[in-house]
């Protein structure tokens, strides 16, 4: 006869992940679905014709490099936090913030180039959905990057308050996951546009 407090196998319960991590991953799925909607809409629309072709500016390559580097720096900050190298955590997070801002600047430069050099407009009588789609995809991604910068900023503040270390990895872990997602999302969008523009 077992009493009510008998041990049950722990593996039957949960994922072993913190609930906030699960929340974040689910949110990432829904963020991605917005882009999935647009990119599939892009293909449907492109196949209907009346599609203005233009070359993607090379500045996007710079953006890609910056966002990839920023993924590396936040991962470095994450590993440093695991080893309790608190100074390096802060350096890594500041570098991530700077690279993220650089990415935004580079995107801005790309949009300026598109408008002035290739006459690709978002709206108005001279606009074609091919251009409008590009601005929506990259613009909405940039909006997410801003949210990511705020996230990384919060983690940095926590780190300055000694709240990020080897036994408090949740915030920096989540920050890193979100930031990597934004980097991968950019890779997805850039490759998608390269292949389908």
């Amino acid at each position, binding site marked *: 006869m077992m009493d009510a407090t008998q041990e049950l196998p722990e593996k039957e319960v949960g994922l072993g992940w913190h609930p906030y991590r699960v929340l974040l991953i689910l949110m990432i799925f829904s*963020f991605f679905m917005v882009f999935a*909607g647009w990119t599939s809409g892009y293909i449907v*629309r492109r196949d209907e014709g009346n599609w203005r072709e233009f070359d993607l500016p090379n500045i996007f390559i710079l953006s890609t490099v910056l966002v990839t580097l920023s993924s590396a720096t936040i991962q470095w900050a994450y590993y440093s936090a695991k080893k309790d190298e608190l100074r390096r955590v802060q350096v890594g997070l500041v570098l991530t913030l700077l690279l993220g801002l650089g990415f935004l600047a580079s995107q801005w430069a790309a949009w300026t180039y598109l408008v002035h050099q290739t006459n690709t407009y978002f709206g108005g009588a001279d606009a074609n959905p091919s251009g409008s789609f590009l601005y929506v995809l990259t613009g909405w991604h940039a909006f997410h990057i801003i949210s990511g910068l705020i996230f990384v900023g919060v983690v940095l503040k926590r780190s300055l308050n000694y709240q990020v270390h080897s036994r408090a990895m949740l915030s920096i872990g989540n920050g890193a996951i979100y930031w990597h997602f934004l980097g991968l999302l950019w890779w997805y969008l850039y490759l998608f546009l390269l292949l389908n523009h």
Partner: protein
Amino acid sequence: MATNMTGSSQAQGGIGTAAAPATTHDDHLHEHDHHDQHWLWKYVFSQDHKMIARQFLITGMFWAIVGGALSSLFRLQLGWPQATLGWLEPILGKWVVGGKIAPEFYLALVTMHGTIMVFFVLTAGLSGTFSNFLIPLQVGARDMASGFMNMLSYWFFFLSSIIMFSSLFLETGPAASGWTIYPPLSALPQAIPGSGMGMTMWLVSMVFFIVSQLLGGVNYVTTVINLRTRGMSMSKLPLTIWAFFLTAILGILSFPVLFSAALLLVFDRSFGTSFFLSDIYIAGQALPNQGGSPVLFQHLFWFLGHPEVYIVIMPAMGMVSEVLATNARKPIFGYRAMIGSLIGISLLSFVVWAHHMFVTGMNPFLGSVFMFLTLIIAVPSGVKVFNWLATLWRGNIRFTSAMLFAIGFVSLFISGGLTGIILGNATLDIQMHNTYFVVAHFHLVMGSSAFFGLFAGVYHWFPKMFGRMMDEKLGYIHFWLTFAGVYLVFMPMHYVGIAGFPRRYYAWTGFDAFSQFADLNKFISTAAILAFFAQFVFIFNFFYSIFRGRRATQNPWNSTTLEWTTPIIPGHGNWPGEIPAVYRWPYDYSKPGSDKDFIPQTVPYSATPESNLPYEQELSE
């Protein structure tokens, strides 16, 4: 108390590899344990899932009355197109011109009726209420994964409701291009008055609504995945939880796509883009927009729109399964098949959206693919229906109000589902498209059915929500009036539809062919308005019982699931002591050998040697 909670919360969270302990959650629980909370935090900006559920329920009921009232108004117009409705002038003001409902306002009425019922009542009001209320209680959790996000979910819904409700009072009227807001009609303010400010507010409101759904949905899924109590494996979950879980996943994946469509529509309306607009002449003038595709909007919209109908119906399916098993005093028939069919419906819901678009000129081959996939949905739906019927078969049925509504649900789901097979066939759909046949189909299979599921849920879990019972006699009256009303409204509508009556028409008086059905339309309208007024029996019963109902016992329906092990009115944290562990599935009703006709999930096999099956006996030793 606090240490106790910390211990059990870590056990239930199963936090092994995550480095950070869930301290914030526990601190917050501890803090809320004091009973001298300000009423504003207790009743208004509450983070407690049970209060948020009640907020969703009451807001949903408000919306249901608004949505029903709007339908009564347009049924007046359809039933008595010649009547003078001057008596409505004090309510509707300038929308009644010379005793006639203005045609533009009629369009606004059907649009807002659809929007309100689908989104605000049957999405937010149904899964918002019961996912919030039942998930933590039935999986054995203190609260949702993030109480704060859960609170935000309600308040975004509230904000969205305020905006949508205000749009009813605009001078140019609310949105009027149908609940599906197809462009170009919805994109051009010059087209109809409803595409002006009303449409803008519709879109803004829906953006907040989507945010609310996502905040709620990620919470539901996380809670089910992470916060189950000890022993509550996925194969011991009540079917309600499986339904809410899959519903939330559908919402997480499909609402963002509606967002993507709505945002592009906003750009088309206000920023001069041409995603959905091309080659349009309006009032003799050519618009500058070139290169857009209105069919693209339909693809994006229905990629949400179809999963959305399952978001509406699946919570009802889950609750009906639970209510049927409890009140038939029998285990649900085919528990695993029920889960499998829910998963099947969820997967299929993403690959059938184009069956709403058979007449958009799509490639007939593509149409056949979507037709084939659509008809496959009949298989999991059929599995569910047969399992419900088999659960009832030779059951020791207790006809509670909830049980009546659950049986009514099965009936409506069958009646409406059969016409789904007709409409799923592309060739037949081309004939039936946009007629009242379609209206009758979806009102039975998803509109009324989901309402019946909602009612079953309210009658069944009312004692847990408010600690009192609803009145059974009034429940019977409510059921029979509603059940008869629904069939009297929607059965004749099939005939009207087969005769070719198109949807969304203001009046058919101009067509001789339709004059023979004038009586039938009058009949439908009468039944609809009576069925609407019958709902006030429920409203009265609900509010009266909150204050004056018979006091509930701890487990009034002799049910097996965890929510009935909490105190009659559970406090914050749900269980005063440790969260009970779970040892068995939730459907041990009338188990052979047992002297009681139900064994709660918290009873270990070792306590019931007389009724254990051989493998259960092994587990207990």
